[in-house]
């Protein structure tokens, strides 16, 4: 068995079908645990009171928004390089979820900014670059939807994905490169986190839940896409006839 075995849609379809319930269940369990920590275990913040609890969604959503884009660009690059059918499908399947998390990051950011900064929105480097990320997601989806031929549509979308990935480090480092209203990162790989342990754990568990959710949802979307594209093949016909 080699890597191409899993790259084959006829293997992917049933395998993804088996995996989705597990990832969905994990997402649900982690989310329940994360929410419990967010509201009942994590202490009140000494500066922001209870308002800081938005962090338990805001930070995981912002992480996912960037991470999903990078994964999408990765699949696009693989697809463009080796012309593997499933890579493009994966890239396409991730876009709506990435856009959703970007929107959530922006929305929760606004709902956090209003009480703490006094403004729903400011044209600060972090916020603006995250908004551009949302436009990139929407742009990729719109471009793909506008081209009827699926192969050309895949390639055009993949190219835009790759061009847009430059925005991700800009978002990430924006708080260092520019003077922003947005605070710097509270969690970093190189130094101890500047927050209470339980807050950190709550955030990490919520991030893990978001991961599991993303995997479940994107696999489900990829399944529908792949079935539609492979409708002429024997395995797809067998699936549609209920024989597989």
């Amino acid at each position, binding site marked *: 068995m080699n890597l191409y075995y899993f790259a084959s849609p006829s293997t992917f379809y049933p395998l993804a079908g088996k995996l989705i319930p597990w990832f969905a269940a994990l997402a649900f369990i982690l989310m329940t645990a994360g929410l419990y920590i967010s509201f009942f275990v994590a202490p009140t913040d000494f500066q922001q*009171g*209870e308002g800081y609890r*938005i962090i338990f*969604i805001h930070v995981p959503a912002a992480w996912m928004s960037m991470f999903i884009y990078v994964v999408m660009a990765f699949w696009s690059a693989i697809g463009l390089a080796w012309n593997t059918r499933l890579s493009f499908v994966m890239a396409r399947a991730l876009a709506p979820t990435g856009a959703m998390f970007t929107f959530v990051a922006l929305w929760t950011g606004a709902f956090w900014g*209003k009480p703490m900064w006094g403004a729903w929105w400011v044209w600060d480097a972090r916020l603006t670059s995250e908004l551009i990320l949302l436009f990139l997601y929407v742009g990729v989806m719109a471009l793909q939807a506008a081209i009827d031929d699926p192969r050309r549509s895949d390639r055009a979308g993949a190219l835009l994905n790759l061009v847009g990935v430059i925005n991700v480090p800009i978002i990430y480092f924006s708080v260092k490169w520019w003077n922003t209203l947005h605070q710097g990162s509270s969690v970093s790989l190189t130094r101890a986190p500047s927050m209470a342990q339980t807050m950190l754990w709550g955030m990490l568990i919520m991030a893990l839940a978001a991961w599991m959710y993303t995997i479940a*949802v994107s696999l489900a979307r990829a399944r*529908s896409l792949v079935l*539609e594209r492979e*409708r002429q093949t024997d395995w797809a016909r067998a699936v*549609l006839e209920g024989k597989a």
Partner: protein
Amino acid sequence: MNWESWQAFWAMGGYGLYVWGSFGMTLLCIVGEIGLLRRHRLQVWRRLKRMKSWDPQ
């Protein structure tokens, strides 16, 4: 335990609108995405089944 009562829980120390506005919108987005996904899947299935019924093979 952080909360004296349910009322205190919903009030979120005066930040109720912002905290629940954030969590609520996130929930809405997740429910919406799953709903759209279901609909997309059903549409694909229906379309493919219909195409098959026209197909003599």
